[in-house]
């Protein structure tokens, strides 16, 4: 077990180095010039060149990436071009807010998605099923900012039940978390529905009924633990898509997390921050997948980690 985790962590480190390379290449070939952003419109060509030299951006790609990687391996993600602060510091100060929103959002999407999926599977083929699947289709296809703004308008502006934006209390957390939950629930409800329908056909469900168990016990005690397995694997994969949602939702709700940091950095071509946030997100995905794989054998004893 310890060996397995160690091996996975070594793999993860290699994946992160790979991601840093790909992101670096993408930012390098990007037509936007970070130096222009720093220097401003009125700067002379000479100033621009000076700044470029100071930041080492005049060096060839290999040298730039080599320097970045060498620093990264020592835990140094560089300094923000515009905020003149260590990227590590910026990210660490905003990470708790994002983690809080992330956990609340994942819980929301699971509760919504799984219950919708189970309900639809049990009502299979009837009106309730079709209604739920239509709802899930809407949530899957709705753009993130539309859902955010809609909820914000109805529940914060019109009804005034929750604060319009910001961070601090549980009330602040509700709307952004529910937004993320609604956005993610469609995938989970569809997956849970088909998984549940398949499991309900299994021989052991018939055995459970033949024992004289009540319908509820058959569903919760026998079907659910089996049906939830593919969903658990999905959670790990989903974190990537989820991080994309977080960037938008944090910006709309003024949630001071790394998503908002990334959004600002992208607009101003602040490369060290973009690199840093990308790597932290990638780390979250890698850890999410590892956790999903570690949880799976707890649910299904047939799964062995090796």
């Amino acid at each position, binding site marked *: 077990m310890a060996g397995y985790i160690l091996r996975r962590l070594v793999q993860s480190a290699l994946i992160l180095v790979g991601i840093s390379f790909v992101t670096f290449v993408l930012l390098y070939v990007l037509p936007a010039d970070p130096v222009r952003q720093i220097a401003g419109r009125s700067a002379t060509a000479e100033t621009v060149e000076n700044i470029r030299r100071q930041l080492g951006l005049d060096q060839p790609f290999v040298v730039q990436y080599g320097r970045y990687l060498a620093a990264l391996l020592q835990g140094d993600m560089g300094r923000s071009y515009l905020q003149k602060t260590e990227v590590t510091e910026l990210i660490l100060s905003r990470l708790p807010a994002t983690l809080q929103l992330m956990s609340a959002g994942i819980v929301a999407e699971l509760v919504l998605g799984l219950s919708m999926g189970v309900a639809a599977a049990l009502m299979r083929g009837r009106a309730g099923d079709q209604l739920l699947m239509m709802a899930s289709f809407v949530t899957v296809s709705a753009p993130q900012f539309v859902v955010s703004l809609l909820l914000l308008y109805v529940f914060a502006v019109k009804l005034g039940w929750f604060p319009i934006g910001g961070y601090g209390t549980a009330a602040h957390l509700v709307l952004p978390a529910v937004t993320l939950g609604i956005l993610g629930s469609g995938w989970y409800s569809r997956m849970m529905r088909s998984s549940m329908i398949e499991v309900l056909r299994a021989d052991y469900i018939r055995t459970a009924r*033949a024992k004289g168990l009540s319908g509820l016990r058959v569903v919760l005690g026998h079907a659910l633990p089996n049906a939830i397995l593919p969903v658990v694997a999905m959670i790990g994969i989903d974190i990537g898509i989820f991080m994309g949602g977080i960037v938008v939702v944090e910006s709309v709700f003024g949630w001071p997390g790394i998503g908002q940091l990334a959004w600002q950095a992208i607009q101003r071509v602040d490369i060290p921050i973009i690199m840093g946030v990308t790597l932290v997100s990638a780390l979250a995905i890698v850890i999410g997948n590892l956790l999903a794989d570690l949880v799976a054998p707890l649910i299904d*004893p047939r799964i062995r980690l090796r």
Partner: protein
Amino acid sequence: MTLAEANQPGAVPAPDPGPVLSVEGLTVSVRTEAGLQPLVQDLSLTLKRGETLAIAGESGSGKSITSLAIMGLLPPPAVRVTAGRIRLGATELTALTESEMRSLRGDRIAMIFQEPMTSLNPVLTVGSQIAEAIRAHQHVSRGEARSRALAALASVRLSQPERRMAQYPHELSGGMRQRVMIAMALAMRPEVLIADEPTTALDVTVQREVLDLLRDLQRELGTAIILITHDMGVVAEMADRVIVMKSGRKVEEAAVGSLFHAPAEPYTRELLAAVPRIGDRPDRTLRPDAPADATVAELSDVVVRFPIKTGWLGRAALNVHAVEHVGFDIRKGETFALVGESGCGKSTIARAMVGLVAHSGRIAIGGQVLTGQGRGEARSLRRRVQMVFQDPMAALDPRMRVGELIAEPLLIHGIGSASDRRARAADLMLRVGLSQDQLDRYPHEFSGGQRQRICIARALALKPDLIIADESVSALDVSVQARVLGLLKELQEEMGVAYLFISHDMAVVDNISDRVAVMYLGQIVEMGTRAQIFTNPRHAYTRRLLDAVPVPDPSHRRQHRERPGGEVPSPVYRTGEGPGRLTLRDVGEGHLVAGAG
């Protein structure tokens, strides 16, 4: 402790004169687009206390639907009881609500199913699944339910019941799982137990143990059993009375003795005639002895191992020794059978012979030696060996027309023009007893037996020297099985093709083979002609295997020996270790037996 003592100390109910279960005029229908279609029609039966009633029939006869109807477990909403009454003692089951029915299910009437592999929930422990069955009907504490579950496990003669309680289904063998199912079904001492093909998925020696167990428990508890089966051997061994069903209707009902000795209905006679029996075939008049070089396959010292657990650097720590030092020859035009129980390595040998798994040792097909790497064996070699598998539906691409399927081997090997290939496919269709105008149909439009004929036609397309038939008739109903076996023999006479016939069914092997090798845990324990193996088995395992086969003759019931259902010996060893190598000794006229014999 017996189940009786475990559950209701001292309370042995007085013999009840009336039937435990009676079914009158039962009709079960399925709702389709074309209206209600009957699956079971006007079926009546009665079941007395302590009696075993067998419902026998081929697939589609409605026997399983009948059992589900009695249990109230018909798949809603499409299938339901449309007429008739089912009475359990004084209770009218057809009039009960679902929640009233639920309280009877598992308590007064219980069921065990065909597939012990899939009938237990894989994510729950054995103990919790049995305890749950008890707690569904009685308000007892968890501890009490647990100790009763343990007693139930002990009563089905499972070794180490204490340990089994905490195990998951996948940690048990098939036979052990079926014992768990039985323990679960009998935990509440039901009046009626419905056993739907309870041993069909099990190896023959395990089947013997499970049947013995069922009979013992019945004697102890007085449970009435409805035994649903397609296997007339099992019927003969177990039943007091038999109902034969066909297409949803009762064909004949009789006491077991009179049914087997004087069947009244033509269908029953056909069914009994189709049942393969050991030792009812005269020895085949052997073809003029082929010269020594007329072998189509030679195997010597073949070993196949699979790594199953790898250490840090990818080195295998444990290996499955699937095939160990196996050697035999297959001569031109003969049928060589490999028999043994699941996991003995018989199918692995077949896969090695067509180059699908890597092996060491020597395999030569028609004099050409396989590389042993498991991939990319020469096409010319593959042309000489073709395979026919167990499940014809899975072996035929559902999106291809039958004509294309049969001609595909020719296409792959670039033989003939499109019209040549079609003509050849049409020929082959005729040859296997199908018609030419079915060439453009899809596999799902054929019955199971017809599909297997299509697979045989496809295997014949390249005119191979050897066809490997891996459990090719095991999934077929007996009457269909008999016809497919007949076809295989005819084709052999006509084309001189050799068969490697792999099967777990001793009666079928006896029916078709010229020579037989018996495998156990990856090694051959005995090999000889059909007569040598079946009339003079020398190895203890061969004898056990033959002894376990249910005989389709009720006057042939035998006493059984008690054997607890423990763990099956495993062919898994650490790297560097392995089973002791058996040496085969000739005990006369080429009859080879391992060890002392």
